Structures are given as structure tokens and as C-alpha cells.
């Protein structure tokens, strides 16, 4: 009986990690997309100005918040690999935000190359994290064209009213 109880308790620990980490993974994915968009706009020649300061600040703040919560997670051994990729993604994306913060024109080609490499590393780590454990998705498809034919969406009941 104790052995079964111990097994249940052990099995619950990764599950608790997944439940706690899922929203952080989703937020990290969103920040990666945002930093990607800002990087793309910074890389492209353009005639008019695009004020990226506020979104960049928001992305950097979001990263800091996610990092604090990720570092605060209890990480059971089966989740260690996932957690390492989360931490690595955070570090890479923080580097992107820092480089973008210097201004798109500063630093020349070396900085542009580093932005691109760090962004690729960050998004690769997010994908590796999603592959490391069940329960994490690389792409949020719930609001894409695909959602229109998702069985879960088609059969969804109205949400409980909570005003």
C-alpha cells in the first residue's frame, strides 16, 4: 500500500510541474513571437519609423516575470530536461531583448547576426522544451484557421458565467 502511495506521489510531481509550467511556456512562446516581430522590423529597411520602444519594454518586463516564476518552480527529476530548455530559452531571449534595446542601427552586422542567432536559439529551446514533456505546444493553434475544424472547439460548451 505504501509503495503504491509512494508511486502516486512520485507520479504527481511531474504532473504538478506540467500544470504550473504550462502557462509560463505559453507566455514564453508569446514573448518569443513578439521579440521575433520586433527583430524582423528592426532588420528590414523602411522609410517610416516604427516605435518599438513600448513593445520591447513590455517584452523585456514579461521575460523578467517569466524568469522569476520559472526559477521558482519545483523541478522533479523527470522535468529537469524540460526546465533546462526553458531556462536556456529565457537566457537567449533576454539577449535578444538587450540587443534590440541598443537600437536597431547600433552595432552593425555583428549585432544583427547575434540577434538572429539568439532568437533562433531561443525558439529552438522552446520547441525542444515542448518535445521534452507532454502537455506543451510549440504553436497555439486554438485561434488559428485550424481551430475552425478542431473537434474540441466544435463541441465546446458555453463557458460558465463568472462576472
Amino acid at each position, binding site marked *: 500500500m505504501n509503495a503504491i502511495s509512494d508511486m502516486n506521489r512520485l507520479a504527481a510531481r511531474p504532473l504538478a510541474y506540467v500544470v504550473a509550467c504550462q502557462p509560463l511556456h505559453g507566455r514564453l512562446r508569446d514573448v518569443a513571437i513578439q521579440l521575433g516581430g520586433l527583430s524582423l522590423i528592426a532588420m528590414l529597411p*523602411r522609410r517610416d519609423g516604427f516605435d518599438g520602444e513600448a*513593445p520591447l519594454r513590455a517584452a523585456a518586463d514579461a521575460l523578467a516575470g517569466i524568469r522569476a516564476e520559472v526559477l521558482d518552480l519545483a523541478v522533479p527529476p523527470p522535468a529537469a530536461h524540460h526546465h533546462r530548455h526553458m531556462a536556456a530559452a529565457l537566457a537567449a531571449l533576454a539577449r535578444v531583448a538587450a540587443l534590440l534595446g541598443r537600437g536597431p542601427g547600433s552595432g552593425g552586422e555583428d549585432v544583427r547576426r547575434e540577434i538572429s542567432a539568439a532568437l533562433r536559439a531561443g525558439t529552438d529551446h522552446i520547441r525542444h522544451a515542448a518535445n521534452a514533456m507532454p502537455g506543451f505546444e510549440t504553436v497555439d493553434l486554438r485561434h488559428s484557421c485550424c481551430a475552425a475544424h478542431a473537434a474540441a472547439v466544435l463541441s465546446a460548451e458555453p463557458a460558465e458565467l463568472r462576472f
Partner: protein
Amino acid sequence: MADYSIWVLEYAAVEQFPRSVMLYGPMHQGTRKLPYGFVVLKGKGETILIDTGYDHTGFGKALADSYGVSNFHHPTEVLAEVGVRPEDVTTVFVTHAHFDHMGALDFFPNARFYIQQRELDKWVWSLTLGPEFRFLVGGTDPGDIAKAVELARQGRMVAIDGDREDVLPGIDVHLAADTHTYGSMYVTVRNDGARDSADTWIFAGDLIYTYDNLTGLDPEAPQIIPIGLAVGSQSNLIFASDAMLNAVGREVRRVIPVHEDRLKEVFPSRLTVHGQQVVEIALAEGEASRVA
């Protein structure tokens, strides 16, 4: 004789797609097949794609399991049906930034990519609005954006600001703002090269899913019925459809919806061994048919 050979190639499909999304309005009308496809043009020394398909490795299983996307085949395999290799591709027009249209950016090592500036700007803006607004940015793969950034760094990603004629000989692009997406683009091919062409084709991206969007369902009373998915508006979709029809003298079959399962009935076509349609819209001089 045509300047460009043109094919539409299916690379995956959703067997049961709600009609109510293909045509805004009529609810509870069942489902239709929705192929995923891209367009290949070959001629004038260029090999051109309109959209790229996507990279199945990242989330293919999720697509298959949760969203019913089936029969996926890699662009390399699909392009081979018309004798094209990914490294042959010189230009890609990205009609909009959804994963199934720009999810394979890094498969074409020698291509230059064109997308609307507005598609990028408004999309980044919408990302700043917060999680309550995530409907506006759904379906984006962060890995795709990283690939686009690297292309931009290399000078291979070109952002176009609005309409532009002769991006390549006889090929124009047009902005359809605030429609399916913020900066959707459609591509016009004047296949005789003439400014006032009698051989114009339009590639509509996701501004329409089916010819029925251009004709309605009642032959006695034709009307434009927009698709059901828009971050912009159905009004804008209707007016964009009208503009596309005007550009081809209201000849409906010349406005090509890549998601239309009946293209194979309108143009010469064949099915591959995987059951995917290869549709031949035009053949340039000296080009052998790929469907005969």
C-alpha cells in the same frame, strides 16, 4: 503563349472543414474538404512560389491529432511532381503570415521572399495588446519568425508597402488591408506580359477559400460571400473579392483559391500516388505538361 507555367499543388488537407467557415453565414450546413496548397510559377528564368506550406516536424502531430490535418507531404516531395527542387526557387510571395502559408521559409535556400509591411507592423502591434487579444495572433510559430529574421538579416526578406506592379515581369502584388489578416496580399500574373492583359490570373491567398465565395450558392442570384475568418472585416473581404474579379473581367475561374477542392475539375489535373491534386493552370512555351 504564356510567359509562365502555373501549377497549384496540394500538400495536405482537412477532410472535414465547416462550410460555415468557408462561407460566412450559412450555419449547420456540414463540412467540405479543404486542401492546403501552394502555387508554382515557372518562366522568364524564374521559379516562383506563392506561399510555402509549413514544416511538419514541429507540430505536425498536434495538427493531425487535434485539428484533423491529414496527408501532409514535404515541399520537396510535392514540388517534385512538377520537376522543381527547393533550391530552384528564386522568389516566394507570402500572401499572409499564417503558419500554413509561411511555415517553410528555410526550405528554399536561394529564394527572395516578399511580404506586406502592414502584415508585419500590425501583427507586432497586436502582440502588444495582451493575452485577452490573442485571437488576433493565433497560429503563429515562433520558429517561423526566427527564420524570417534570419532571411531579413541576409537581405532576402522584402517588405512591400501596398500595391506594386512588375515585382517580377508581368507579376503585380496588391494589399488587401484588414481582411483575413491585417496585411493580406494577392498576386496578379499577367501571363502575356501586357499591361492590359487578356490572360490575367489572380492568386488570392486566403481572401477566398472557394469559388463559392465569389459566386454565392444561388446561380440565379450571384453574390460575393466572404470567408468566415477575418481579423479585419467581412466588408473588406467582399470589396477585395470585387477588386480581384474586376481585374480578370469578372471571369471567376481566373481568381484562384488554393483551398478549393474543385480546382481539379476546372483545370487539367491529376492525382499523385498520395491522392493529392496537381492542377495545371497554364503552360509556358517549351514546358511539358505535368498532368498529361
